[in-house]
């Protein structure tokens, strides 16, 4: 397998080819996961945005199935890690073992050396093991014994976890959470979807019959296409406003990071491309704000006591934040933007 660094992607796909390829993947996954089109598309968007996906929900709603279906739909290297409390970091990254034939240490790549890494029940491993993922997820490289190994493109970690209130789980460290582009919840299927599931899954596991409909190369070209999606200044401004709002919201102890801004915009590009547009809309950012931002932020103790989830807080921010006006063309119904520096922020700054 040729080592391909993550920056080198293929050429841009034409519009219709992009559409065909992406639709094929979505349709393929939907053979397994019924009635969850939005979730599936979001998962694909995260892949195309070169991000990592965290699927969080109660047991038994198909988290692992979604991860495996996505992995199987794309013809590329797939590794799976079952996170258990006694999993070691070296199991994830790889280890150097002594080769008696060559009388030398030889690197045995760990589970992350693949295009798609499915980390099941990631919060059942200790934080020590989880930390092994930090470097590879952000920098797409693994350093073992002083030697740095590049990972391939596409590289995506799809992790599933149970909500932290469940037994026997460790909360993910903030740094780890921040590296996941989006956290999605599966949710229970609708009644019809559940009926269909009973029909489909009764005899055999449809996952076994899933055939790949795409390959790593296509995915690389899809990613290149997504990177090419146009983002207007106003949209960038809106993304910045949105992230700034989380930093200034009185309900939040920790706002979203600049990485969040970056990933928000990348995911928005992917979503726009999946919808057949070559430009990003503020609507995309609004739709993605909760999945992309909610798992990174920490509410204040007051908000926690008031049982306000981060999802609700972010959704409220989105509802309250005005669209940035077009710089060249004020309409008169825009909020005047505070002058840089001395203006009052839209939200009261948080007191330490």
């Amino acid at each position, binding site marked *: 397998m040729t080592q391909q660094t993550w920056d080198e992607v293929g050429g841009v796909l034409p519009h219709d080819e992009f559409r065909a390829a992406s639709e094929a993947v979505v349709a393929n996954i939907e053979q397994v996961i019924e009635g969850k089109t939005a979730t599936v598309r979001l998962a694909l968007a995260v892949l195309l945005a070169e991000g990592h996906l965290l699927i969080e929900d109660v047991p038994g709603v198909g988290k692992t199935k979604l991860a495996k279906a996505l992995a199987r739909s794309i013809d590329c290297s797939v590794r799976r890690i079952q996170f258990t409390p006694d999993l070691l970091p070296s199991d994830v990254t790889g280890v150097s073992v002594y080769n008696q034939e060559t009388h030398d240490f030889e690197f045995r790549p760990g589970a992350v050396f693949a295009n798609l890494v499915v980390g099941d029940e990631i919060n059942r491993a200790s934080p020590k093991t989880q930390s092994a993922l930090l470097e590879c997820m952000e920098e797409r490289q693994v350093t073992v014994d002083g030697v740095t190994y590049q990972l391939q493109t596409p590289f995506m970690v799809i992790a599933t976890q149970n909500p932290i209130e469940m037994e026997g789980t460790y909360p993910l460290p903030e740094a780890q959470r921040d590296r996941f582009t989006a956290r999605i919840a599966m949710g229970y299927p609708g009644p019809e979807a559940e009926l269909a599931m009973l029909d489909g899954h009764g005899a055999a596991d449809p996952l076994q019959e899933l055939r790949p409909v795409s390959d790593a190369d296509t995915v690389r070209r899809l990613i290149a296409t997504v990177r090419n999606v*146009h983002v207007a200044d106003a949209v960038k401004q809106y993304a910045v406003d949105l992230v700034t709002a989380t930093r200034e919201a009185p309900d939040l102890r920790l706002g979203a990071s600049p990485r969040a801004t970056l990933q928000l915009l990348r995911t928005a590009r992917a979503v726009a491309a999946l919808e057949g547009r070559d430009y*990003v*809309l*503020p609507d995309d950012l609004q739709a993605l704000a909760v999945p992309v931002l909610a798992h990174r932020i920490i509410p204040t103790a007051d908000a926690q006591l008031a049982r306000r989830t981060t999802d609700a807080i972010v959704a409220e921010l989105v509802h309250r934040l*005005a*669209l940035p006006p*077009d710089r060249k063309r004020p*309409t008169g119904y*825009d*909020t005047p933007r505070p002058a840089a520096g001395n203006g009052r922020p839209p939200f009261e700054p948080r007191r330490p």
Partner: protein
Amino acid sequence: MIASRNIGFVAAAATLLAAAPLSSIFQQWTWLIQSAIAVAVVAGAAALTRLVRAPLWGQVLGMLAGLLLALTWLFPGGGELIAFLPTPATLAHFGELAQGSLQDMRSYGVKVPDTTPLLFISVLGVGSVAVVVDVLAVGLRRPALAGLPMLAIYSVPVAVYVDSVPALPFVVGAAGYLWLLVTDNVDRVRRFGRRFTGEGRDVDVWESSPLAAAGRRLAVVGVALAVVLPLAVPGMTGGLLDQFNTAGNGTGNGTGRPGQGGGPGRIDLFASLSGQLNQSEVADMVKVTTTEQNPFYLRFGVADELRPDGFRVRPPNGRPVNRELPDPSGRTGPGVEQRTYRATVEINRTLSMPFVPLYTDPVSFDGLNGNWSYDQNLGVVFSNRDNSRSKRYSFEYVRSTFTPAALRRARPLPAEHPIRLQQTRTPEVREVSLLVSRLVEGKSTDYDRVRAIYDYFSRENGFSYSLSTKGGTSGQEIVDFLTNKVGYCQQYAAALAWLVREAGIPARVAFGFTNGSSTNGDTYTLTNRNLHAWTEVYFDQFGWVPFDATPAYGVQGANRSAWAPDSDAPDPEPSDTAAPAAPQDPGATTGPQRDEAADKDTDAGFDPTTGAPVERAPTWPWWTVGALLAVAALLAVPALRRRALRRQRHHLPTPVAAGPAPDDGAGGSIPMTVLGVDAERARADAHAAWDELLDTLVDYRVRIDRTETPRATAERLAREAVGEDAGSATAVRLLGRAEERARYARDPLTGEPLHPALRTVRDSLAARADRRTRFLAAVLPPSVLLRWRTSLGDTSARLVTASGRLRRLLLRWNPRRLLATRRA
């Protein structure tokens, strides 16, 4: 307790200050001393009762008792115990005083002398107000309410002076009221502890508290409004009614506004005279019917106070006309003929002044109420309350005619005679003195002297009549007149009076109407053109005798008497004037005068600039129509602005090729550039359409959400606002798509029919709106108003920021701040 004693003191002082307007009513200041005593006693009683912690009703009783004691002491009736304890007799005396005050109020005009009844009623009023103010300010702790009784005092001069009330006493009273308010507030704040003024604490020393700053700003705005508003509102200065010239106080420049029934002592009759004579329009003013054949002039005013700046009207003083009038029969003597006639006067509604015209020496009046008084000395009937508009009355009068021989018998007045003392006072003008001494040289009797001066104003000496001269009766103007020898009745009358006075004979200027030119039997219809002035000379035993020096040809309906014949009468026609012995010479100049009337009309019409009450009627409809039009135009501005905005957006880029650019895009590089231009145009078009849509939404009161994207807005509208109309839903989605492409995409949407879509959406919005919304959207579009409001807010915010910056800059140089830092 100390605080309430302090407030009690302030309340008493404020009451006294609030009584300051009474100074404009009384001639002397006795009332102030007595009121101060009464108020002090009241305040003392209040303090005493509070010292013994009496309840509120006890305080009131104490104060009333104090007031009673003070009144008893100040106005003793004779039956008191040890000078200040009242007895029933005292109360009866008070009752008499109160009745007497009513009497005096009717009989005296302002300013009144110090009569006991008036002083009593004043002190009683001020003392009662002191009681009420004390109860309100100290007892009930509502000092703001105490302004009402204080205002009651101020209403007294307002009621007495019908138009202009001196402002200064009111300022004094207002200052007292403010003092009371401030004291109470300081006291209130003190109850919480020490007062914090911000001194030396690095607090902004210019504005020690936000409350004070707000107060100052309110004051500034209030004063500005008070100054600007009367200027802006037409008619508030009574501009149309100003023909009797501007208002002044009292005798300052001796002018007033009889058009609104101003005080009779404050009218510049000269000014009104010239104004009326110069009117281009002729308006009937008075209709008089008399049993006398060819009566002498109808008379309403007198100017007998000669100052360096001319003759002035003094405030008249007299008794009500419905009481007994003085008997004029004392003027009889040899050569004097007296006959009694009856006249009925009907005043037009255009003539409004505090006098009514009458013939000299009335005996009885019929049809005038007690508001009208007769001044025996001046011979005028005046009112301080009423005015002459639309009055109709009749009176009997005694007409005295004199023979020159009889007048010649009149002895010169003794030098200490009051009339001579007062009515011969003349300012020193050397030219006049020389002329008079030359004229009266060798004349032995007063009458001969007067005739010499009177005859001097003749055609032979070069005097002629013209209305086109400048009015004025001051010394220099008299000299000018004597030099130029051209003038009209004002100058003739004043100059004759001046010269006669200079000769040591009392003289004054009388105002009234000539007999006019339109006569119907014994009824004379008098117009503004018939207004006239002449001279009256005082002869011992005979009283005031009229002389009219104005050339008869200049005056319609002039009347010459035997003792003052027409000095211009041409010699070939001596029939009228050559008979000085005739007791009464009828209509000396009615004949030739008719011929002159036409000339005079043209002559008189040259200066129509002076406003007059007679012109009032036709102007106000124009003002009303103009104001209505202005309001309508003002109201139409938002709608017009909205329309202009819509048109501007519709024709925004004037697309050269509206749609074809994408179709033609197949060939080469030239269409590419066209496309670039076209993209900009399409973008601008989409934006304009979207702005128009937003404005339309605002107009039809559909919610606008700033957090919504164009797509979300379009979806919401398609869902909620435009209803089940599929065409509108498509249209609004198209608009949303165009706007989002224009805003966020590389290439805008081109070639779509945005304007028809816009129209569809607007129609469907209008169809769903209720009638009121539709009307408002058409007449007063909320979008335009909102925009204006926003820009106004922005501007004011900018101004506030700039002024704040300036203030901070100035504050650096604030010396008090430097001092504060040094002390710290």
